[in-house]
């Protein structure tokens, strides 16, 4: 359409290509310094940091925690899952083997990753009293919620704050006086198993994200963002930024020539090899299966996903990147398959096992959050569906699936999804005062598909 006036002005966009004149390291360092200054010396009770995929969120958390501890401010760290807690503790202890770190855990069997046992400075206990006096104590929000607030901590760091529900923050916020909230606004929103509509639009809607509630009540808090994704390659950052972070754009920390993926074995001319070469060359590949309505575990699509992985291994991929002098072999551990549903993941695992592929991570978007791989293969959430549902359209799901990779992402999908999106009824209810997810999933899907169309290889 050639409208004389665009309906609404958009915030200034980041140029879509190249890194001309942009020094990612400096930009990221400036942002980090400003965040640390506010956290250590600021006058506010809270500091919020938006971190796009692979922007160094964990590095920031580790650094902020160490600097707070070094400045004589013991602190509590709240993460959302046990895996996240174990990962943070491991990073903290690896960064500073002398640092006294407590890992507060549940009283279930095998409550933490045994890998933590290699750090002598890490004390593990299910009782907060055992960890008293340590510089840093890390646990999940669920475990912290059982801790009685006696003397509140002066400082806290809340990790993955956008995936934390408002009511979970309510349960632990009495434990600290001030906090640094870090998270990725583009990933999957927290959800509730029961209807929470009656509180939609409330500033303290218990089913909203913790950051939404925090900012509704404290709009004056400083909000920072990390401007550089060190994970996403130059081929992916502009698309992911435009499609999922239109109002908080970011850029890739690497340029177009900095990363390279190549296969040792020559292509056999098959569509699978062609899509692999397309993805190796451009960062994206779409293997398009003939249009059909299928059940979730579409055998043809599942098999196509498995074949892409199989061929990727057979052709012995080699990844060149700024992280290593020498090229690195694309081994199974560096590859992941992402799906929308658990039964799809199970079907892909079975297909891979049948093809004797081992060691490739296969999981749903929910479980891939926060993970990083060299190459990802994605079974498109709308592939073969008769209709798009709220679940399948969710912005965060597609964002997670398309932002896990350092080199390339291959999407496997039935044809016809653009038409499916166009035919999707737009009859969403609107709740007064409720914060809207920006961008909308429907728009984000359109943007991603439009981009993928240029990298499509028909499967037949």
């Amino acid at each position, binding site marked *: 359409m050639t409208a004389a006036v665009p309906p609404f002005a958009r915030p200034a966009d980041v140029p879509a290509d190249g890194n001309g004149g942009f020094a990612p390291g400096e930009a990221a360092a400036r942002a980090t310094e400003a965040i640390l200054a506010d956290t250590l010396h600021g006058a506010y009770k809270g500091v919020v940091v938006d971190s796009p995929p692979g922007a160094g969120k964990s590095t920031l958390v580790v650094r902020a925690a160490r600097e707070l501890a070094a400045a004589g401010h013991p602190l509590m760290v709240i993460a959302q899952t046990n895996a996240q807690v174990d990962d943070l503790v491991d990073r903290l202890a690896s960064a500073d083997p002398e640092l006294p770190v407590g890992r507060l855990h549940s009283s279930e069997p095998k409550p933490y990753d045994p890998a933590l046992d290699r750090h002598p400075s890490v004390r593990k206990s299910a009782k907060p009293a055992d960890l008293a006096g340590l510089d840093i104590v890390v646990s999940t929000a669920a475990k912290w919620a059982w801790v009685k607030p006696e003397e509140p901590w002066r400082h806290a760091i809340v990790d993955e704050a956008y995936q934390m529900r*408002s009511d979970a923050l*309510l349960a632990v916020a009495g434990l600290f006086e001030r906090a640094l909230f870090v998270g990725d606004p583009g990933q999957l929103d927290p959800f509730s198993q029961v209807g929470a509509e009656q509180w939609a639009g409330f500033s303290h809607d218990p089913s909203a994200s913790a950051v939404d509630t925090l900012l509704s009540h404290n709009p004056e808090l400083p909000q920072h963002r990390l401007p550089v994704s060190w994970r996403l390659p130059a081929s992916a950052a502009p698309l992911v930024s435009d499609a999922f972070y239109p109002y908080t754009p970011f850029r890739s920390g690497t340029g177009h020539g900095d990363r390279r993926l190549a296969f040792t074995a020559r292509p056999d001319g098959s569509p699978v090899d062609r899509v692999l070469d397309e993805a190796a060359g451009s960062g994206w590949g779409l293997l398009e299966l003939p249009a059909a309505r299928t059940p979730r575990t579409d055998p043809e699509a599942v098999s196509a996903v498995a074949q892409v992985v199989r061929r990727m291994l057979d052709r012995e991929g080699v990844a060149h990147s700024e992280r290593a002098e020498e090229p690195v072999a694309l081994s199974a551990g560096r590859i992941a398959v992402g799906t929308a549903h658990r039964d799809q993941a199970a079907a892909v695992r079975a297909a891979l096992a049948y093809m004797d592929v081992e060691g490739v991570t296969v999981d749903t978007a929910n479980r891939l959050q926060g993970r990083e791989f060299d190459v990802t293969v994605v079974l498109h959430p709308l592939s073969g569906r008769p209709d798009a549902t709220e679940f399948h359209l969710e912005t965060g799901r597609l964002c997670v699936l398309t932002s896990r990779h350092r080199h390339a992402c291959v999407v496997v999908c039935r044809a016809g999804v653009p038409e499916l999106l166009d035919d999707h009824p737009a009859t969403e209810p609107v709740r007064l005062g409720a914060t809207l997810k920006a961008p909308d999933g429907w728009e984000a899907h359109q943007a991603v598909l439009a981009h993928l169309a240029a990298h499509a290889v028909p499967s037949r």
Partner: protein
Amino acid sequence: MSLISALARMEAAASGRAEPVATVRHRHLAERPLVLVPLTTAGETGAPLGAMVGTDRGAPQVFTVAQPRDRDLRFAFLGRLAEALLPHLESCQDEVETIERKETDPESGKRVTVEAELCADAPQLLVPTAPGVDFVRLLGRSMRFRRTAEEDPGTPYPAPPRVPLLGRWLTHYAERSRVPGSSLLLPLTGLLTRHWATGQSHLEDQHLGTLLAWIAPPDGESGAEAARRAELERDGTGQLVRPPAGPATDPAFDNRLLAPAVARYDAGVPGAAEELRELIASQLRPTWEAMWQGVDLLRALPEGAHVPDRWRRDRQSYTHHRDRLRAGEPPQPRRDDAVTAARKLAMREQRQAELEAQEALDDPLVMAVRRLAGEAFTAAVTDVEMAYSEGKRPTPRPLVTLRTEDTPLLAEGDKVHRQLPEGAQQRAELVAEPEPGVLVLRLLSGMGRGKEPAQGTVPEPGDLLCWTLFEHSPRGGPGLPEPEETPWTHGGPPGEQTAEDPDPLTPEDVL
């Protein structure tokens, strides 16, 4: 939608008759439910047009409003409604049993056991549809902040004596209806669709007449035909033969019958009030009959085993509300504060998980849905190998090998649960899956405290067991702070809870 439910709908569409999607009744059904069929005035918020009320199918009470925009007539209606509903809503307050419950002692901070009352029963309120539940909520909201002349002699438009009290009861019932599995206030359409799948869509199932037509078509007629008539059949004057179950009325009724009758009433035509009353009653009566037909259908189903447990929670909810009224607490606030909202959400999530587990345990057809979804499986025991835990006091940890045709979504180390014949629960973990369809579980609990497992707690080869991947009585989360301790992230303490002001009433409120 589960494939099993979808299949039931297809079978119903093909056979012309609703198909069961439950084999037991999953909700409490009172011996004498209080049935309320309300109607509202189009375009006016909370302006009732009429209601049919009662516990006796043969003797409903009918209340109507001749001019819905007249505030005095509206108040008079609500006053009569209060006199009809309150005796029933208050009828279970005094017959109580004594129970023990744990409470935190405010002085010592320790958990202590205290005695408390629990009402032996609670009144159940049934309305036709989900919008009917919303209307009960709206009526409750419109009444509970009103002031009577006794409470506030200066109020310019005093409400009839018991109207605010009814508002508080209806508010409580409507709020309780949001709790999964609760049965104090239920819409009949919701009750019926929980137990039957029709050959029409879920949206069309919200029409009580068509729903009943599918479940119990008249002799010689298919459900599809009967439903079509129930939905669309009009008499010679263009009026629906089966008026909608409300609370909204049919526009053709409003425009051709109601509006002229109201105009005659406004003009003071003799007999107009009686004419209106009969007109409105004519719209209520078919739904009244349908309500009792639905109750009969549901009563024919055997009650699910866990239904009394859940009804006990409803009785607790009823008792709590009684206690709050007796303690002279102010009406429920317009908006929940942060802590109240979070507590409600946490409680409802726990009830939802519990409801899903209990319905599956009570009903093989519900369990079938979970089995298809990979969340449960039935399996035959092929081998049992006795084993013990390591440590100072070895306890039994038998290994049970099972063969199943189901496809549970399980990985090694995942926990599974089953109900023992006496009702206790047993937990196990997946140790290995040596070949597809063969699972080795290690039993972890439910075998008593002894060195050897208690009788009947370890299965034997040949036994057929049903395991679930979900817990049967999910635990609640940790406590939340008291409202006066609301942290700064959530706006700080909401301040002293005081009675909220009534909605301002001005002469211009009536158009």
